[in-house]
């Protein structure tokens, strides 16, 4: 909402610098976003009179003007053709900066000195609407007299300061000059001096010209109309044009300007119909019929639906109620009789219509917040008052007013103690009353009567806000919360924190990615057509296809990050995201399931399959998972992964039924080359997807101390030969099983493939540490144990390398 300061001051006699006004209004609850004065960009521009006009000797279109600017006469060369001697016009002197941004310097035009520039509308960021008497491609010639040398901003009415207010949706009354002036009066402690416009008088009786019927009475709380005969369409006076322009509204003609002026002043949207085009002399407020159409004032043809409200004549819609009038019944040069409409439409209905038509107007944006029907009458009388003042036509006697249930002021019990209790302060009852009265409230017999324009004030807490904002939020003291407080991070929160911090300690960087993406993401990560992950929660109204699906897997988000880092020529990267994934449920009216996944990805010289596997294993161990219980299985179905370099990690956990169940914790491996290709990554990438829920459950108990060994250990190295397809994990399991308690630890130290151990074979070399907890292990004991182990291995086809 734009507010020209002088307009507000015409209703509240306060004085303040622009900064003071902005600060005090902001602190009392009407937030000023910015303020500016056109004069700021019009320094060194004055009014001058052209005293002499002569042709430039070397040009067929330039003129040499002598311009009297009060203290002196200066010479200016101009190319404009509309000047004559004696004309008053704005003169930009040497060093001036124009509102259009141009800077003016003294110079020569074809050899003749020019000490400035005479300004056109365009150069002053004005238009013919603002100065209808001017010519578009010439110098702006003033119609009124002005002192020579006067600041041009003052002479042109461009020296007022305009404040841009952020009006919150609860205060539609402040979408008006009167509303803000009332706030200003209360803020500065001066009287609010707006007066009620008089009852209109005129010849004839409007009801003989027109009838009004509200059919959709649920959506139209009030419909008032009045008529003006013998309309004399012409530009409105300069003061009105100025205020409109400063408020950001283009002046058109007196009738249209009056509707806009009243809308700005009262916050009540108005409309003017050309009576000649109201067929059947009858206005009906109704819902649109199926298939009805209207061409609105902006020239667009719009299809209407039955939940939209229209103003209709006998033939059909002549306006979309509260949104925009029809082009056909609009007010133009030829209009001779005008119907003024001042109505109150149901906010949500206007909002829905405006949204559906994609047409948001000054009118609809006011209506949708819910306007006060009581205001419509005053606004209509104000319009008629202006018609008289501007001599824009002859008012027809009477007003039509369909207003079946006039709004009644609400009464709220006045409880100063409760207000003080909520605020934690001690304001006297009298001070509270003194705050409320200037805002239009009245207080009597323990009841606060709320003015009808303050529909936002419903309960005691709303009164408390009025008290607080005029007591000054910043005069209210600070206190510390008392009472019971017991805050403890949950086990899960601490677990996630450790998870994240451990990975950061391993050299991984945390990422944050969008949780929605394109349906194409599934193709990019190479998911099969029937993969259930493709069934995702879809956003009805996405910004675009790229952000239309809630992710069912966070892998594409991570791959995008990897791709971006690769494209940025980061040679090596290790990244993670604690990401939420969203799985749709069968019933669309149930919330989808949200699960957390820890997604890791890395590339560069330190990274290969074993590195990511080792990272995940180490991470599990830090988080209290017994990794010796970990089951590692080849996963050939991980569609996004290299089929030969992908594994699932799982663990046996006691399920709810008490039985042991295998629970998958993670999938990890090298990313499929086709996936890399889709993300334009020309480097092998490894990744891991860890289920945070499963991992949290897989945490073991608190570790229990085992006594340190008292007896020495024996170390034996075993070089084994096995067929290539025998998984190392199986061999290890057999080693542990056969070794029993006395096999303290084992470590793989070499893997070898070569002709000398036979084709299709591999050799694995383990170092075993053997120890007996109760006695020194003899060589013979160790030999016996090794024999036992070898015998077991032989059963699975694994033999000692010869």
């Amino acid at each position, binding site marked *: 909402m734009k507010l020209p300061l002088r307009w507000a001051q015409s209703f509240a006699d306060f004085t303040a610098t622009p900064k003071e006004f902005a600060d005090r209004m902001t*602190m*009392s609850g009407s*937030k000023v976003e910015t303020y500016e004065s056109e004069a700021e960009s019009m320094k060194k521009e004055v009014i001058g009179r052209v005293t002499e006009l002569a042709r430039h000797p070397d040009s067929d279109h330039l003129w040499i003007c002598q311009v009297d600017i009060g203290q002196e006469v200066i010479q200016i060369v101009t190319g404009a053709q509309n000047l004559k001697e004696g004309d008053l016009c704005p003169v930009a002197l040497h060093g001036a900066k124009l509102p259009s941004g141009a800077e003016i310097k003294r110079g020569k035009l074809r050899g003749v000195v020019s000490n400035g520039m005479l300004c056109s509308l365009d150069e002053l960021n004005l238009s013919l609407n603002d100065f209808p008497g001017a010519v578009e491609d010439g110098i702006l010639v003033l119609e009124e007299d002005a002192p020579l040398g006067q600041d041009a901003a003052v002479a042109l009415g461009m020296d007022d300061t305009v404040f841009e207010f952020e009006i*919150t*949706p*609860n205060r539609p009354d402040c979408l008006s000059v009167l509303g803000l002036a009332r706030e200003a009066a209360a803020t500065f402690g001066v009287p609010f001096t707006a007066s009620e416009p008089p009852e209109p008088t005129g010849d004839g009786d409007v009801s003989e010209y027109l009838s009004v019927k509200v059919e959709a009475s649920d959506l139209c709380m009030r419909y008032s109309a009045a008529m003006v005969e013998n309309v004399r369409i012409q530009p409105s006076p300069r003061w009105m044009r100025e205020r409109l322009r400063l408020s950001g509204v283009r002046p058109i003609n007196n009738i249209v300007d009056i509707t806009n002026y009243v809308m700005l002043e009262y916050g009540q949207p108005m409309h003017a119909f050309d009576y000649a085009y109201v067929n059947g002399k009858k206005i009906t407020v109704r819902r649109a019929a199926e298939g009805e159409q209207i061409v609105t004032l902006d020239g667009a043809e719009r299809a209407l639906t039955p939940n939209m409200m229209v103003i209709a004549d006998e033939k059909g819609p002549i306006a979309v109620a509260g949104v925009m009038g029809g082009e056909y019944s609009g007010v133009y040069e030829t209009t001779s009789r005008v119907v003024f409409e001042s109505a109150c439409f149901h906010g*949500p209905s206007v*909002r829905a219509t405006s949204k559906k038509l994609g047409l948001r107007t000054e009118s609809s944006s006011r209506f*949708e917040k*819910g306007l006060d029907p009581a205001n419509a009458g005053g606004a209509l009388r104000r319009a008629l008052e202006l018609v008289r003042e501007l001599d824009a036509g002859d008012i027809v006697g009477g007003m039509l007013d369909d207003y079946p249930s006039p709004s009644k002021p609400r009464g709220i019990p006045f409880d100063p103690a409760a207000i003080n209790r*909520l605020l*934690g*302060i001690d304001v006297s009852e009298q001070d509270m009353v003194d705050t409320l009265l200037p805002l239009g409230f009245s207080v009597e017999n323990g009841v606060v009567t709320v003015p009808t324009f303050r529909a936002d004030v419903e*309960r005691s*807490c709303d009164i*408390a806000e009025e008290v*607080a*904002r005029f007591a000054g*939020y910043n005069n*209210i*003291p*600070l*206190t510390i*919360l*008392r*009472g019971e*407080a*017991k*805050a403890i991070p949950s086990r899960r929160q601490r677990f996630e*924190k450790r998870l*994240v911090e451990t990975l*950061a300690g*391993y*050299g991984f*960087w*945390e*990422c*944050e990615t*969008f*949780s*929605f993406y394109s349906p194409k993401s599934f193709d990019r990560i190479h998911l099969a057509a029937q993969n259930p992950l493709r069934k995702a929660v879809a*956003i*009805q*109204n*996405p*910004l675009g296809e790229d*952000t239309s699906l*809630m992710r069912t897997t966070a892998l594409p988000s991570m791959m995008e*990050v990897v791709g*971006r*880092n690769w494209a*940025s020529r980061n040679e090596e990267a*290790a*990244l993670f995201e604690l990401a*939420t994934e969203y799985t749709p449920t069968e019933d*669309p*009216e149930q*919330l*989808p399931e*949200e699960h957390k996944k820890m997604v890791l990805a890395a590339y560069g010289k330190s990274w290969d399959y074993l590195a990511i596997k080792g990272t995940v294993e180490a991470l599990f161990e830090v988080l209290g998972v017994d990794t010796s219980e970990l089951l590692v299985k080849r996963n050939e179905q991980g569609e996004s992964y290299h089929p030969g370099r992908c594994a699932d990690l799982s663990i046996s956990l006691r399920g709810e039924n008490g039985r042991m169940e295998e629970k998958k914790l993670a999938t990890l491996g090298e990313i499929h080359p086709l996936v890399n290709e889709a993300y334009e990554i020309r480097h092998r990438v490894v990744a891991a997807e860890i289920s945070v829920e499963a991992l949290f459950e897989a945490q073991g108990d608190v570790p229990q101390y085992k006594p340190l060994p008292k007896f020495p250990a024996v170390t034996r190295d075993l070089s084994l030969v096995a067929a290539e397809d025998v998984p190392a994990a199986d061999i290890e399991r057999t080693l542990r099983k056969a070794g029993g308690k006395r096999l303290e630890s084992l470590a793989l130290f070499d893997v070898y493939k070569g002709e000398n151990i036979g084709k299709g074979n591999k050799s694995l070399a383990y170092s075993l540490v053997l120890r007996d907890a109760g006695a020194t292990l003899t060589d013979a004991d160790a030999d016996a144990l090794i024999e036992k182990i070898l015998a077991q291995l032989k059963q699975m086809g694994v033999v000692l390398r010869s």
Partner: protein
Amino acid sequence: MRQALEEIRTTAVAQISTAEEQALLEQLRVQYLGKKGELTAILKKMGGLSAEERPVVGALANEIRGQLEDAIQKRADELREVLLTRQLAEESLDVTLPGKRPAQGGLHPFGKVLGELEEIFLGMGFDSVTGPEIEYDKYNFEMLNMPKSHPSRDTQDTFYITENILLRTQTSPMQIRTMLQEKPPIRIICPGRVYRSDPADATHSPIFHQIEGLAVDKGITFTDLKGTLDLFIKQLYGPDTRTRFRPHHFAYTEPSAEMDMSCFKCGGKGCPLCKYEGWIEILGCGMVHPKVLENCDIDPEVYSGFAFGAGLERIAMMRYDIDDMRLLYENDLRFLRQF
């Protein structure tokens, strides 16, 4: 014989004291003091001496043995010290060479800022709670005093999944969920992702993070709201930071306010960061609207509370002087490594 002993003494002491290597010392020890050494050889000949001379020569021989042993020990110590000194000198490094670091990772700026906020509020007795991002309309809007078609909804352009399910536009539904489950006293903060249909640019993102807070108890006042948030900002930005509260409107609080903090860059004098106002808008807050309490079956005649909400992006961007929100979601390592 005495003369022979004295000669050994002279020669040996000289040799020992000039020996340059440990091995040579050992050799000298064997040469003079060993089983077949020169001193031993002389002692073996003592049988040929008279009874008077024998103890005298014996004593002399022992004295010389002792002297040589000492000399060898002393020289050995000297040599070790020389050797050590030489070794240490040789091993001198350019200590200014760059160190070998372990792989370095780190948290996203959000993670860092959020961690700090959570710690501050934990200290003030606020638990951190999280909940679903895909939410029911009733929790996100209706129970927060924003019925369908309420104009306040226009300030939060919403992504819908169905008519009744949406992507939460604020983390306030967690306040509702908490109030429905727990009875006062309640003190929580709700951090998390929220969604609004704003296209991404330098200052907007369709996904961003909020941290909201709620305190409900008997006798909570507007002064408590001010005191708690002022303390929070002082914890985050330092004890000299000042706060200012401006009236505002939120459907779910009444009275409502916006809180500004004195610009942490210029201290309130005015600079480009605060657009020369000296103040930076930091969060919205207010006393929980009695309708919201009633919706959660909490009697507003008995209990009152306050709520607040701030954008994590805004806090992080101001803290780290980041000028484009999109950087936070690009996750370029050259960016992430800076925090």
